[in-house]
C-alpha cells in the first residue's frame, strides 16, 4: 500500500468550505435567542463616572442591560495573562485586572462597558445609542517608545512597565563588543498588525435551565483551553457544566486564542436572563478589539570581525502589550522572541532585554509567528547590514556563521536537534538564480527602475510544548496534546483531536496519518475536533503545534490500537503475538501467511465470543472489549523548522511603488505529511509577511483613536501584490517526535518581512526604511537617494 503520508492529497474539507456549506458560529441560531450588542468606550483612556441605562431599558425589544457592576457583584473573573514573566531584578510582572465589562475605567477604544440584550439586532443597536455613559476623559498613553514616560494607566504599575526582562549575559556581551573590529547597529520598528481573520469573532450561548449546562459556540482556536480558562478564572461554570464548541472557524492567526470579554459576558448573562444569546462582531469591532500583533521598538547591535565572524549580539526592545496582558501577551515578546533573536548563527555571546509596556491601545498578543518574526527581523536586518558594511556577499557572511553540526546548542535557550542551514541557502540561491541578479538589476536600471535583492535565513522554535520547559518558563498550563482514536465495529475510524483546524487542513492531514498508521483507506477516517463534548482534551492550535504535538498523539493512539489488535489477532489466528507482523492493515502470521484484517480484528473486539463455526472472535484473557485508545503526547523538545528565503523587488522611483518580482522560499519542515497543504501554509505565511513589510499600517492617532479601522484604510495585501512563489524544501527529520515532523504554519510570516525589507533597502542603496514600506515612504527615500547621487556626481 502506498504511503499517504507524503502525498499531495487534496483537502477533504475544501468541498464543504468552498461551496458555502461551512457551519460557522454566526450560522448557528437557537430558538428564542436574544441579540447582544456592546456599549464600547469611545475613548482611549477615561474614568467611568456613571452609566445611565434607564432610557435604554425602556426601549423597544430590550430584554436586559448589564454593566460592570453586575458582573463584579456576581464575582465573574476577568481576562488573564497566561504566562508569568519575571523581571531581570527577580520581581514578578505587573498585571492589571481586566474585568469583562470595564467598571471604573476604560483603557482602549472599543473596550466593553455594558451590554444590551434585545429581541432583535436592530433593537439592541438602537438601545445601545440610548445608554448614557458619563466619562472623565484622561490623556492616553499611545506611543510604544514613549509609554514609560506617560501617565500611569493602571494604579500601582509604575512607568506602565509590566516587566523589564533579560535573557543572556550582559557582561559577556560587553567583553566581546570591546574586542570587535566593527559594531553593526540598527534601530527598528516592528509595526503593529491587525490579524484580520476573514470571519469576525462571534459567540452563541445556550443555557439549559434543566441541566444547568451552558453551551458556548464560539470562534476559538482552542475550545478546551477556553473552557478551562472560563471555568478556572472566569468562574462562569464548572467545566462539567460548560461545553465549548468551536465549529468551522474562518481563520485565527493567533487572534482567536484568547477568551474574550464577549464570550465571558454572554455565557454569564445567558444563565442570568435564561435566554440564548447571539453576538457577532462587526468588522470595525474586530479591528478595535481583536488582539493585535507585533509592535516592537528595537535597538540592536552585532559585534563582528573584519572577516565577517559574529562575536556578540545585543537587543534592547520595548514591546507594546496594549491596555492589558492577555493569554500569550507576556510570553510573545520574551521567550518566543529572545531565544530566536540570535538566529541561525553561532554567536558566542548574546542578550535580549525587553521592556513590556502598557498603552491605551488594543491588547497585543500572539499573531502568526508570535515573537519569532520580530526576532528574525532584528537579526536578519543586522546580518544584511553587516554584509553591506563589511563588503562581504550577503549569502557568504551567513554561510560563515551557520552551525554545521547538530544538535546545535543555540546561544540562549534552545538545543536545535536537526537542520542543514548551508544546504537550504545553497538551494535557495540556485532556485532564485542569485548569481544572475546583477544582470537583472542592470536591466531594471535601463528601464528607470531600482531593483534590489534580499535574503533572510531563519529558524524558529515551534510545535509549542514541551510542558516541562514551558512551565519552567512561566506558562500557566502544560502544552501537551491529546487524541482519541475510535475504531468502530463496522470498520470506520473516528480520530478525536484537541488541536483545532481553522484553515490548517487537519481533516485531511490528520486522516492521512491515521490511515497510514492503521492501514485503512482515507475515506473511512474522520477527524473530529472543536467540541469539548467530543474527544478527550486539548490545548488547541497555535505556535505551529498541531502536527508536531497533536499529530503525534494521533500516531501514538493508533499504535496502541495496533498493539491491542495484535494481541487479539494472535488469539484469533491461534499463534503467539510475536509471530505476527502488522503491515498495510493486516495482521499476518509470518510463517503461514494466515491473516486477519484490522477491520476484522476491530469487529472481534466489539463482539467477543463464538456463535457458530464461522464466527469465532475470542478476546485474549484479561483483554477488555472495544477498540478505542487515547494518547497524551508531550514532546521532549520544540521543533525547529528553518530555511532561507530570497526576494527581488523593483521600485518605480517616480511613484515609490514596489513590485515583488521574485520570491523564493526554501524551508526545512522535516518530514512533510502533505506537500499541497504545506505549500498552502507557506504561501499564506509569505503573503501575510509581505503584508506586514509593505502594506499593513495600524495607525492610532495621538488620542488613541484607531484611524485604520476598516478596509478603506487598512491595507490587506491581495493576489495582485504577489508574484508566483517559488518554493523548495530540504528535509532533516526532527528527532523529538516519531514522525520526524516540524511545524510549518508560521514560517512564511517569520521569514518574509526581513527578506522583503532587505531587498527594498538594497534597491535603495542601503537606505534604511521602516515597515510598512509604503509607496510614499519609498518615493521619499528615492528622492533622498537621487539628491545624494547628484551630490556625489
Amino acid at each position, binding site marked *: 500500500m502506498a504511503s499517504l503520508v507524503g502525498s499531495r492529497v487534496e483537502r477533504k474539507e475544501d468541498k464543504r468550505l468552498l461551496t458555502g456549506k461551512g457551519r460557522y458560529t454566526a450560522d448557528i441560531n437557537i430558538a428564542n435567542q436574544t441579540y447582544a450588542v456592546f456599549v464600547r468606550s469611545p475613548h482611549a483612556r477615561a474614568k467611568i463616572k456613571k452609566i445611565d441605562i434607564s432610557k435604554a431599558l425602556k426601549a423597544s425589544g430590550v430584554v436586559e442591560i448589564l454593566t460592570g457592576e453586575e458582573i463584579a457583584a456576581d464575582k465573574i473573573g476577568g481576562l488573564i495573562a497566561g504566562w508569568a514573566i519575571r523581571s531581570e531584578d527577580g520581581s514578578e510582572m505587573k498585571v492589571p485586572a481586566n474585568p469583562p465589562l470595564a467598571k471604573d475605567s476604560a483603557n482602549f477604544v472599543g473596550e466593553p462597558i455594558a451590554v444590551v440584550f434585545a429581541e432583535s439586532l436592530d433593537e439592541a443597536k438602537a438601545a445601545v445609542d440610548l445608554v448614557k455613559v458619563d466619562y472623565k476623559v484622561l490623556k492616553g498613553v499611545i506611543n510604544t517608545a514613549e509609554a514609560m514616560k506617560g501617565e500611569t494607566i493602571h494604579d500601582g504599575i509604575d512607568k506602565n512597565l509590566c516587566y523589564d526582562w533579560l535573557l543572556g549575559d550582559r557582561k559577556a556581551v560587553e567583553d566581546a563588543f570591546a574586542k570587535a573590529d566593527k559594531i553593526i547597529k540598527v534601530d527598528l520598528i516592528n509595526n503593529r498588525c491587525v490579524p484580520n481573520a476573514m470571519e469576525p469573532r462571534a459567540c452563541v450561548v445556550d443555557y439549559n435551565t434543566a441541566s444547568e449546562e451552558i453551551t458556548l459556540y464560539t470562534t476559538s482556536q482552542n475550545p478546551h483551553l477556553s473552557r478551562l480558562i472560563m471555568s478556572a478564572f472566569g468562574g462562569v461554570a464548572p467545566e462539567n457544566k460548560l461545553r465549548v464548541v468551536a465549529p468551522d472557524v474562518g481563520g485565527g492567526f493567533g487572534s482567536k486564542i484568547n477568551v474574550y470579554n464577549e464570550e465571558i459576558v454572554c455565557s454569564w448573562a445567558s444563565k442570568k436572563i435564561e435566554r440564548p444569546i447571539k453576538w457577532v462582531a462587526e468588522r470595525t469591532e474586530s479591528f478595535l478589539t481583536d488582539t493585535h500583533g507585533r509592535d516592537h521598538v528595537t535597538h540592536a547591535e552585532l559585534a563582528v570581525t573584519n572577516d565577517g565572524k559574529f562575536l556578540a549580539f545585543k537587543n534592547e526592545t520595548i514591546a507594546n502589550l496594549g491596555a492589558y496582558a492577555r493569554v500569550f501577551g507576556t510570553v510573545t515578546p520574551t521567550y518566543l522572541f529572545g531565544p530566536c533573536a540570535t538566529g541561525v548563527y553561532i554567536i558566542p555571546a548574546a542578550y535580549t532585554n525587553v521592556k513590556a509596556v502598557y498603552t491605551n491601545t488594543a491588547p497585543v498578543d500572539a499573531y502568526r509567528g508570535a515573537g519569532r518574526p520580530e526576532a528574525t527581523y532584528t537579526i536578519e536586518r543586522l546580518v544584511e547590514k553587516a554584509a553591506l558594511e563589511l563588503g562581504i556577499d550577503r549569502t557568504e557572511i551567513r554561510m560563515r556563521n551557520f552551525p554545521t553540526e547538530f544538535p546545535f546548542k543555540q546561544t540562549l535557550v534552545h538545543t536545535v536537534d536537526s537542520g542543514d542551514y548551508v544546504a537550504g541557502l545553497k538551494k535557495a540561491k540556485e532556485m532564485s538564480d542569485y548569481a544572475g541578479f546583477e544582470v537583472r538589476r542592470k536591466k531594471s536600471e535601463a528601464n528607470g527602475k531600482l531593483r534590489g535583492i534580499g535574503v533572510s535565513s531563519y529558524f524558529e522554535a515551534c510545535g509549542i510544548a514541551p510542558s516541562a520547559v514551558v512551565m519552567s518558563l512561566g506558562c500557566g498550563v502544560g502544552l501537551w496534546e491529546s487524541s482519541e482514536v475510535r475504531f468502530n465495529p463496522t470498520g470506520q475510524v473516528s480520530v478525536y483531536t484537541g488541536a483545532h483546524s481553522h484553515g490548517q487542513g487537519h481533516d485531511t492531514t490528520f486522516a492521512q496519518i491515521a490511515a497510514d498508521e492503521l492501514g485503512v483507506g482515507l475515506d473511512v477516517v474522520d477527524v473530529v475536533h472543536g467540541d469539548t463534548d467530543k474527544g478527550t482534551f486539548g490545548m488547541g492550535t497555535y505556535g505551529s503545534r498541531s502536527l508536531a504535538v497533536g499529530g503525534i498523539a494521533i500516531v501514538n493512539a493508533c499504535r496502541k490500537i495496533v498493539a491491542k489488535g495484535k494481541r487479539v489477532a494472535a488469539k484469533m489466528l491461534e499463534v503467539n503475538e510475536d509471530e505476527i507482523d502488522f503491515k498495510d492493515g493486516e495482521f499476518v502470521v509470518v510463517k503461514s501467511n494466515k491473516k486477519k484484517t484490522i477491520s476484522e480484528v476491530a469487529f472481534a473486539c466489539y463482539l467477543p465470543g463464538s456463535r457458530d463455526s464461522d464466527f469465532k472472535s475470542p478476546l485474549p484473557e484479561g483483554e477488555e472489549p472495544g477498540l478505542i485508545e487515547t494518547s497524551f503526547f508531550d514532546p521532549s523538545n520544540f521543533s525547529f523548522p528553518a530555511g532561507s528565503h530570497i526576494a527581488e523587488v523593483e521600485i518605480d522611483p*517616480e*511613484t515609490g511603488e514596489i513590485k515583488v518580482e521574485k520570491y523564493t522560499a526554501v524551508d526545512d519542515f522535516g518530514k512533510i505529511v502533505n506537500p499541497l497543504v504545506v505549500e498552502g501554509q507557506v504561501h499564506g505565511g509569505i503573503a501575510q509577511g509581505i503584508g506586514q513589510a509593505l502594506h499593513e499600517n495600524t495607525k492610532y492617532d495621538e488620542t488613541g483613536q484607531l484611524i485604520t479601522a476598516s*478596509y*478603506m*484604510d487598512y491595507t*490587506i495585501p491581495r493576489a495582485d501584490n504577489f508574484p508566483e512563489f517559488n518554493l523548495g524544501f530540504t528535509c532533516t527529520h526532527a528527532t523529538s517526535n516519531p514522525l520526524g515532523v516540524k511545524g510549518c504554519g508560521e514560517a512564511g510570516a517569520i521569514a518574509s518581512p526581513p527578506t522583503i525589507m532587505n531587498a527594498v533597502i538594497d534597491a535603495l542603496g542601503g537606505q534604511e526604511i521602516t515597515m510598512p514600506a509604503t509607496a510614499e515612504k519609498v*518615493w521619499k527615500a528615492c528622492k533622498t537617494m537621487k539628491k545624494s547621487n547628484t551630490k556625489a556626481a
Partner: protein
Amino acid sequence: MKTFNYHSPKDVKTASKLSSTSSIFLAGGMTSIPSMKLGLATYKDVIDIKNIKKLSGIKVSGNSVTIGATTKHAEVASSKEIQKKIPSLSKLAGGIGDAQVRNRGTVGGSIANNDPSACYPSACMALNAIIHTNNRKIEAKNFFKDMFETVLKKGELIEAVEFKIPEKSNYQKHPNPASRYAIVGIYLAKHKKEVNVAVTGAKSVVYIDKDLSKALSSSFFSSAIEGMELDSSEMNSDIHASADYRASLVVTYAKKAVEAC
C-alpha cells in the same frame, strides 16, 4: 440600518415627485447602502431608479458617446462601441472597485455622489461631458461643486452623461492600496482644439490642471511636463498620501497618460 420606505418607480416623473429633503435616489447603492448600514446617513424614502428603463443604455453618435445614468461600470467596460470610440473610458470603468462593484455601481451614481477620489468625474471633465438631467443639460465644468456636492437640485435626476469623443485619451490611476479608490487619477484627453488634464483624488473636488493642460496643448509629449512642480497647497493630505506626494503623482501619471496615448 434604520427602516425606510422603499419605492421602485417605473418612470422619471414619478421618481422625481417622490423625492424630498429626506430621500435618496438609489442606483447601484455602492456608497448609499454602506453609509446607511454604518448609520452615517438615514433616509425616510429610498427611491430605487433601476427599474426606469430609459435610464440605462449606451448610444454612440458621430462625436459623442451617451451613457444612461444607471448603466453599470461592467457594461461600460465591456462595451465594444465604447472600446472603439473612447477606449480609455472603458478602461476607467473596468478599473473601478472589484467585479462585484462593477456589476452594481453606475455612472450616474458615481457622478451624483461626487466622491473626491472617484474615477468618473475626471472623465466628465476631460471629455467635456454634458450631464443630462430631467430638467436641463449641465456642462461638466459647472457640475461638480465640492466634496460630495454637485449642482443637482432636489428632485433632479441624472438621466444620461454625454461624453465628447476625443482624438486621443488615456486614464491613469494611482490607487489607494487599501480601498483602491484613486489617490490620484488623471484623465487626459486630446481634443481638436485643446488638451484637458483632469485630476481626481488630489483635491477636494475634481479639476482641470491648467498648467499641465496648457503645456500639453503646445506640445503633446511627456517631455513637455517633465520636472514640472505643481502647487500642493490645496491638495489633500491623509494617512495614505501627503499633499507633496500627490502633487508629484499628478505630474508622473500625466506623463504616463501622455506616453500611453
